[in-house]
């Protein structure tokens, strides 16, 4: 059952990812991306990472992609898109990048390294199961995030704040900044 669901989610995730790239209209690409994000969330649930799945749907599919859709609709990009399509040397470069990534992943998960990962994974999974029982599905992520990694977490927040301030500055009409 789990295997069937995994294959289903995996096919939708990969198919959606391909769809994002080859989709003709921006709205179609966006919906493919939502399908991919939702399928990845489904895979997280199969791994019993419920919290991660919920956050994936809540933040990416439910907030960020809605903002994307909002922008696409506000700028009315969905209807006359053919002029925006570009082909050429970039698509060749993307093929090279995809090939390299696939190669690195296959190197990482095949042979001895893969077996070692699997063996290691079992012990890690047992430790995570114990932590989930002790702290709950949310606590097991929140606890290290706000203790061990709190500096990195806050710095990340600061980085996003810088991006937001920059966006506001860029969006401001020229001359309105003074006074």
């Amino acid at each position: 059952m789990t295997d069937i669901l995994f294959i289903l989610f995996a096919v939708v995730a990969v198919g959606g990812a391909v769809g994002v790239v080859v989709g003709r209209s921006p709205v179609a690409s966006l919906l493919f991306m939502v399908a991919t994000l939702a399928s990845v969330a489904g895979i997280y649930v199969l791994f019993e990472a419920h919290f991660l799945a919920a956050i994936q749907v809540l933040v990416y599919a439910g907030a960020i992609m809605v903002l994307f859709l909002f922008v696409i609709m506000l700028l009315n990009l969905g209807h006359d898109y053919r002029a925006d399509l570009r082909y050429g040397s970039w698509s060749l470069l993307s093929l090279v990048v995809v090939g390299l990534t696939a190669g690195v992943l296959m190197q990482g998960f095949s042979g001895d390294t893969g077996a070692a990962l699997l063996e290691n994974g079992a012990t890690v999974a047992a430790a995570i199961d114990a932590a989930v029982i002790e702290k709950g599905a949310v606590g097991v992520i929140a606890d290290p995030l706000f203790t061990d990694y709190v500096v990195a977490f806050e710095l990340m927040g600061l980085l996003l704040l810088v991006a937001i301030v920059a966006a506001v500055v860029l969006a401001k009409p020229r001359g309105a900044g003074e006074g």
Partner: protein
Amino acid sequence: MGEMQELSTFWFVTFGAVKVVAVFTVVMAVVAYMTLAERRVSAFIQDRLGPNRVGPFGLLQPIADGIKNIIKEETMPGTAAKFYFVLGPALAIMPAVVTFAVIPFAAPLPTPVGTVDMIVADVPIGILYILALSSLAVYGIVLSGWASNNKYAFLGGLRASAQMISYEVALGLSVIAVLLLAGNVTLTEMVWKQQQLGLWFVFPLSLAFIFFLISALAETNRLPFDMPEAESELITGYHTEYSAMKFSMFFIAEYAHVVTASALMATLFFGGWDIPFWPGDDMFRHEGAWIRGFDESGAPIPTSPSVLITLLTLAAFSAKTGFFLLLYIWIRWTLPRFRYDQVMHLGWKVLLPAALAYIMLIAGTMLVLDQLGVAYGMLYGLVLTAVSGVTTLAFLFFVDRDRVISGAHRKRTTRASAARPAAGPAGRTTSS
């Protein structure tokens, strides 16, 4: 007694399937009859009769409406993006009907083969599941607005996405206060914590409840926040071009959201299926046994589920949810619609900072109480109730002073009253 018998896989799946079908049917029936209730209550409020011809008291009206919607002609605008036009209603209704799954609706039911939890799926992320899925609801509305290729529908879709993103923030922040006090995200545990506190969370977290109520109204696109539909401005907004069952699906989705939001308010702030002033129904799974609470020494007090308690708690849950359904209708036919900029102002400049400050206050109070060694119980709850009560009064005072939400009518009267003294008493003083 206290010991519990776990369900075997076969019975777990069987009862699971029964619960899915039963809950889905009940939610759909409530949705159907809420359309009737809305029309009857609005008629009562406006001193009319409302639909009363089909069956006794008009009770068969929803069935007649359903048949009408199914046999009506499905129109498809020639310039619409066909695929997305059909996809829209489907995407709108899907999240609406699945969110009820994580809400516990009664105390566990004992059966000869084991105890059955009265919840469709007790997932470990509880409330986050509801927040995540209801955040997807906006796709249906936005897509149908865009695919209709109609300016009114398009504006409705844009408004919907802006509004839902804005109020999702306030909604999430008001839930955080509940999470702080409950200490977990599953709704079963929230009900249990309210039973242990001896107070429903609406008292210690009164301001969070107000924020939640406002945000839930905005998230379900109900008046006074029905900007995406706003008949007087946008015809009916995103579903202007829809007819027959596709149109009906938007309505089913909206009412299903209302039912879930009502059940959620009952669960988060009004004790869920808890019966007030009676500890006999308190029940929680603790280390493989059913317990009612802990005695002075911290030892668990065992209890055992019974059919009677399940039925009584089911009645309590239905009564609370029913009250909020009525409140939704009541608000809709009492308050006028906000202006669009007022909606955005309220969401971003009032609710968001106020909710953040309130979380700080609640977390700070809880930290002080924990440091003082106050046990989780009545005293703990009462201190928080006092703090929240003062904050709520301050918030309402601030909001009500015409500074934050000021309608056009009030602005004119204040300007007129400001102008009058200048011409009246002021003129008299200069003349004397």
